């Protein structure tokens, strides 16, 4: 039976593990402006990235944005997922398609839409000025808020679909039994539905958090030149600065931090769930 995972395993080994190993090797090299990089085995790139307040700030911004997006997705996604899970099967397929709809448009195209909406002469500013509410246009584009809104719009469907799959597995009659025993809908949600949906909350949050930590197009297009998250910073080092060793080190730091936070988050939520 174990042989069944062989094809997938080989594919992962070839297309993921091997390039990652190569990237890790590159991260230990030394940068040279004339020869691109010099063969070496030294941790200098990691030490420089970790010690530099600039990259600490970039990592801080990345984590803030990723956490905010995950929490927002959870808050807006849970009711939508519950509604979706408890829906009649007839309209359900339509609702699922509508949920997935934003994913049918590419990230760049979607961001262009947000730019048209949030820009200095965009729809929102034009409307507010037309109504006489403001005289000078508001700075909406090229802000952290714009990035968070843009990313949430991309990742919310992942949260909703993951949660709704888990909520569907919670028998409806448990909610009815709770009501029968005198629980208000809010209490039934808090004491019955939510604890049973924790696996979905964890899975959805992990998925969304990882996607947010690695976001590239949205921060570049909606955050503007002064806003930096890790994925664009990695790209900058590889492509603009042609500093592959430092870029590779940044990429691994991003990977390890994402992994660590994901494991930590799952463990904390999982423990609480067990305690209940």
């Amino acid at each position, binding site marked *: 039976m174990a042989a069944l995972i062989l094809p997938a395993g080989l594919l992962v080994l070839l297309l993921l593990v091997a390039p990652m190993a190569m990237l890790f090797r590159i991260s230990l090299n030394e940068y040279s*402006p004339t*020869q691109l990089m010099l063969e070496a085995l030294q941790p200098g790139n990691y030490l420089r990235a970790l010690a530099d307040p600039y990259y600490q700030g970039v990592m801080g911004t990345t984590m803030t944005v990723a956490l905010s997006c995950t929490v927002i997705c959870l808050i807006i996604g849970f009711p939508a997922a519950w509604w979706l899970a408890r829906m009649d099967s007839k309209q359900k397929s339509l609702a699922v398609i509508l949920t997935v709809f934003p994913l049918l448009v590419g990230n760049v195209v979607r961001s262009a839409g947000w730019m048209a909406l949030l820009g*200095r*002469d965009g729809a929102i500013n034009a409307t507010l000025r037309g109504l006489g509410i403001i005289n000078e246009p508001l700075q909406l584009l090229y802000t952290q808020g714009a990035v968070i809104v843009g990313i949430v719009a991309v990742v919310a469907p992942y949260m909703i679909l993951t949660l709704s799959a888990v909520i569907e597995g919670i028998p409806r009659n448990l909610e009815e039994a709770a009501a029968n025993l005198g629980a208000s809908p809010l209490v039934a949600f808090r004491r019955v539905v939510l604890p049973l949906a924790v696996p979905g909350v964890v899975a959805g949050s992990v998925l969304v958090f990882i996607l947010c930590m690695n976001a590239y197009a949205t921060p570049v*297009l909606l955050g503007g*030149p*002064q806003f930096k998250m890790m994925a664009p910073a990695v790209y*900058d080092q590889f*492509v603009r600065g*042609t500093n592959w060793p430092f870029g590779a080190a940044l990429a691994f730091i991003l990977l390890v931090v994402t992994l660590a936070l994901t494991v930590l988050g799952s463990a904390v939520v999982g423990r609480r769930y067990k305690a209940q």
Partner: protein
Amino acid sequence: MTITRRTALGAALAAPLIGRANAQAAPVIVGTWGGDYGELLASNIDVPILRPAGVEVQQDVGPQDPRKTKLIAERQSRRGTMDICCLSDVDMYSMAQQDVFEPITQAQVPNLAHAIPTLKRPYSAPHIYSAKVILYNPAKIPVAPKGYADLWDPKYRGRVGLVDILYLANTEAAALVGGGSETNWGPAKGKLMELRRNDVKLYPSNEALAAALKSEEVWMTIMWLARGFMWKKAGIPVTHAVPEEGATSITFEMSVPKNSRNKEGAMKYLNAALDPRAQAGFADRMGYAPTVTNATLPPELAAQITLNPAQQAKLRTPDYAYTAAHTAEYLDFWNKEFKG
């Protein structure tokens, strides 16, 4: 002869090989920008000059940075994916330092004989060039700026816009204002921080800056003369002033990677690119000046996209070695201090 299943199969398998033997040579793969530039390459070089000579061309369209990355990644492989690589002068120099290009000589590219001597490099052919100037909105700034230093005037607080990706061009201009030169960017740091305190606006792309100039959000910027010419044609309210500090040239160059699979075709391509007929097309539509002395432009067009003799005499060429050695340092400064 009867056609059996086996002979039919054999013929089908052999057909691609026959096709390959019949073709004169593989197409020349040109790694280039898309948009106007790619289109003009096709309509001025590929179709009118090379196709009649039996040379087919295919474009590998993409932005410059990924093209550089591709060159580096393919450096070790015997068979590259590009026969011609188009880059701007500064990037071409830094890639040439990685020893990835064939030397270009007049023996292989006869039209190099007519190229402007200061634009010639041993590793590339100069394709088109322009100069770095000041673009300003004449309705808002009635008196033409004299030099880059005018961008630092406090009365234009919040009205100066710069493009993020042109950090090197902006850094060099700031260095000149601070008394530096193409081999001394040191003064740029202080001057750029001064500009930042003066609420300079930063845009992620040329297009974003164009939109800001059009909506009159900003009134003045540092930009290539050629782009100013195109923007003016597109109805953006700008005109240009040549800085008294001396305009700096930007050349777009073409080179042949060492692992090109069609070097002969590539050299023919370079020669066609320097053909006076091909050069004039870029001037009219993109505002770039010819790099060969035997291409003539209508006087009215020439006045808009070239410098007068006095300005030409002060034209600066970037010091590529200095630029390559200091790019990482100033990119770091730009990202961390200026933008931070």
